[in-house]
Every structure is written in C-alpha cells, then in structure tokens.
C-alpha cells in the first residue's frame, strides 16, 4: 500500500468511524492528524498531495471539530489553514469559517501578503475572502507601496522553470520558422511605440516617471529568452517565456500558432497579436493601467505578442 492509498484509507476509516464516534460521544481519532500531516507535506505541486488535501478538506466541518476537540491552539489551526491556503484558497476560506479562526486586521494583511506573493488577482481574492473593509484595503495598498520593489521583483511560484524547455530543446522539435515579413512588422510597432511615447511625454510631462517604468518592463520583455513552455490549448496556443535576469515569465502568443478558429479569418496571421498590442497602446494613452505591458517581438516560433 503506497502512501496515497494509506492516507486515503485513514481518511475514509476516520470519517466512517467519526459518525459512529459522534453517536457514542467518544473523542475523535488522531488519524485525522496523521492524514493532515501526510497530506500537507512540504514538497510543492505534488498532484497526489493536492488530491489528498482536497479529499481531507472536503470534510472540513468534521476536521474543524476534530481540531477543536484535540485541543489545537489557534496558532496551530492557523498553521494548518495556511498550508491549505497555499494549495487552494477557496478551501482555506471554508476552513477558516469552520475552524472559526478570527484574525485581527494586521494578521489579515500579513496573511494576504504571504499568500498573494505579489500576484494581484490572488491578493484581491484574499481581501474579498477575508472580508476586508475599505480602510483595511486602503492600508494594505499603502503598505504595499513601501514593499513595491519586492513585489515587483516577485518570483512566481509556478514551476515554469522546471517544466519549460531550453531554446535548443524547443527548436529541435519545432520546424524552422520562415520570417515572412516579421522583422518589418516588429520594427513598425517599435516605431509607433516610440512616437507615442514621445508624444505622451510632450503632452503630459507628469506622466514621465510612470512611462519610464513601463518602458523598463517592455525592455525586459525584449530580453534574451532562456526557456519556453506551453500554457494551454486555447485558440492562440499561448506559451510562457522565461527571460535572462528576470523572474517573472511573459506570455507569448506566436502568430503562426493561432488555430484556424471560427473567430479568426483563415488568411489573417496575427489576429490575436496586434489587437493585444493595440489594446495596450490605447490603455497607455488613456492611462487606464488595466492592460499589462505588451510588446510585439520575434520569438522562438516567429513574431508574436509578449505580455508581462
């Protein structure tokens, strides 16, 4: 019996016994502790472990009751909760609700930072899940301004570095790409970008610092590519790129990989590349700051858009 089967058996037998135990008013078994420990081992991104965590967490009310009965301190409960949160945020909120963990505002903020690790989407989900008030949200943003450099230099916790391929490996599998006017297209976008930047700086001198920050990110996205890997099977077949000297991957959509989807005209290459780039230019001009920096560049599979 391997560890997965063993823990699954323990969890099952615990919950089977749990019902009887409740009827007989006997204390809960310590099997659940063993199950949690086994399930929450520290090796990251182990699919089996995630399945175990899921199996355990689906029985959250019973677990919370068990922890309570076993005399877990709030700190210990929080520690279990945090381990769950790093795997699955929704389950963590469920756990928090059932285990009745109350955070003070400072703890909530620290927790939000810890879990979000610089990812805005996760930060917002944590803030909503923990029912942050407007004041707490404002405070977290004010705090994050001080921590901005760390956050911007965040390291993605996704295992892209291990699953990506080096360019040599990638090119060995992919047929050579014919340029087909790509150099001119990329040069044209650069010219437009530079003209827009100059025009913006002339018209709104106060925007200069922000525009320089953007330009720096754009320049990083034009850097040397170290690794490449697939990100999914949607119509534009996106890939991620890892750059030299940069921790944050970029999303690369090569024009030639676009599928002949009913959304795209068959004879139009780059149907998703240029709209993305143009959206970013419009976003920049209107100072909306909703679209992440996007450029058009020549990549391992030919020209395509690269987004921060």
């Amino acid at each position, binding site marked *: 019996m391997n560890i997965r089967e063993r823990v699954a058996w323990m969890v099952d037998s615990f919950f089977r016994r749990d019902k009887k135990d409740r009827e007989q008013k006997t204390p809960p078994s310590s099997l659940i502790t063993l199950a949690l420990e086994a399930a929450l081992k520290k090796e990251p991104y182990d699919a089996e472990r995630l399945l175990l965590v899921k199996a355990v967490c689906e029985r959250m009310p019973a677990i919370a009751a068990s922890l309570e009965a076993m005399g877990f301190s709030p700190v210990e409960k929080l520690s279990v909760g945090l381990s769950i949160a790093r795997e699955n945020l929704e389950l963590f909120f469920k756990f928090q609700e059932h285990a009745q963990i109350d955070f003070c505002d400072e703890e909530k903020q620290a927790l939000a930072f810890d879990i979000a690790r610089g990812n805005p989407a996760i930060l917002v989900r944590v803030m909503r899940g923990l029912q942050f008030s407007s004041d707490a949200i404002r405070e977290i943003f004010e705090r994050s301004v001080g921590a901005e450099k760390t956050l911007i230099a965040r390291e993605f916790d996704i295992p892209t570095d291990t699953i990506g391929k080096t360019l040599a490996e990638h090119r060995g599998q992919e047929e050579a790409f014919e340029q087909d006017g790509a150099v001119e297209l990329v040069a044209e976008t650069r010219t437009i970008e530079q003209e827009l930047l100059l025009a913006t700086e002339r018209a709104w001198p106060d925007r200069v610092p922000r525009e320089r920050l953007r330009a720096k990110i754009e320049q990083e996205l034009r850097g040397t590519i170290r690794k490449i890997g697939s990100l999914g099977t949607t119509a534009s077949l996106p890939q991620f790129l890892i750059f030299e000297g940069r921790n944050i991957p970029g999303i690369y959509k090569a024009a030639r990989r676009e599928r002949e989807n009913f959304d795209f005209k068959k004879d139009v290459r780059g149907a998703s590349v240029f709209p993305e780039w143009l959206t970013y230019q419009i976003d920049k001009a209107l100072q909306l700051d909703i679209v*992440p920096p996007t450029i058009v560049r020549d990549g391992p599979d030919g020209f395509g858009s690269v987004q921060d």
Partner: protein
Amino acid sequence: MTKWVDIISFNAIVWSGTVVARCIFENGSVRCSGEELVVNLLEKGISQDNALPVLPKDGEVFLQAISRHFHNAYLFATPVQEEEVVNDFVVASPKLI
C-alpha cells in the same frame, strides 16, 4: 447604523487601489456616488442569473449584488460594511517608485 459598499479599482502597474464609487444604503434605497461611468452603470442595475436585474431602489439586496458582482482583480467591491458613521470618501492616489 449605515450600510455601504465601496468599489475599488486596482492598478497593477503601480500596485495601488482607488475607490472609484461608493454606494450607501439610506432611506430604503441605494445612492451611488463617484466616477460617472461606474455610477451610470450601477444605476442601470445589476443583472443576475435566472432572476430579474436588481436596481438601486431594491435597497440592501442591491448592495449585496454589487458586492458579489464586482470581483475582478482590477475592479472589485468590498463586502457590505456597517458602521455608525460612514468615513470619508478616500481616494488613494497612486504613488510612483
């Protein structure tokens, strides 16, 4: 006790949040103030799955609908907040590095 919901816009470039609209429940209906675009959208009501849209005149139900409806990373709503006195309408200005 006054109930209200804030709608916050998140700026991923400078990592800052701004309150773009505030909806306060008073006299049985909800009054929204803030950015014109957002306020206009809110006044048209919020559509719901398998149900009629909710409008500001629906009161507290509308507040809860706002809180559920705006959950994007870049535009999101706070939960329904309840205090004796509504604090000032705070606009956190984006700061640059």
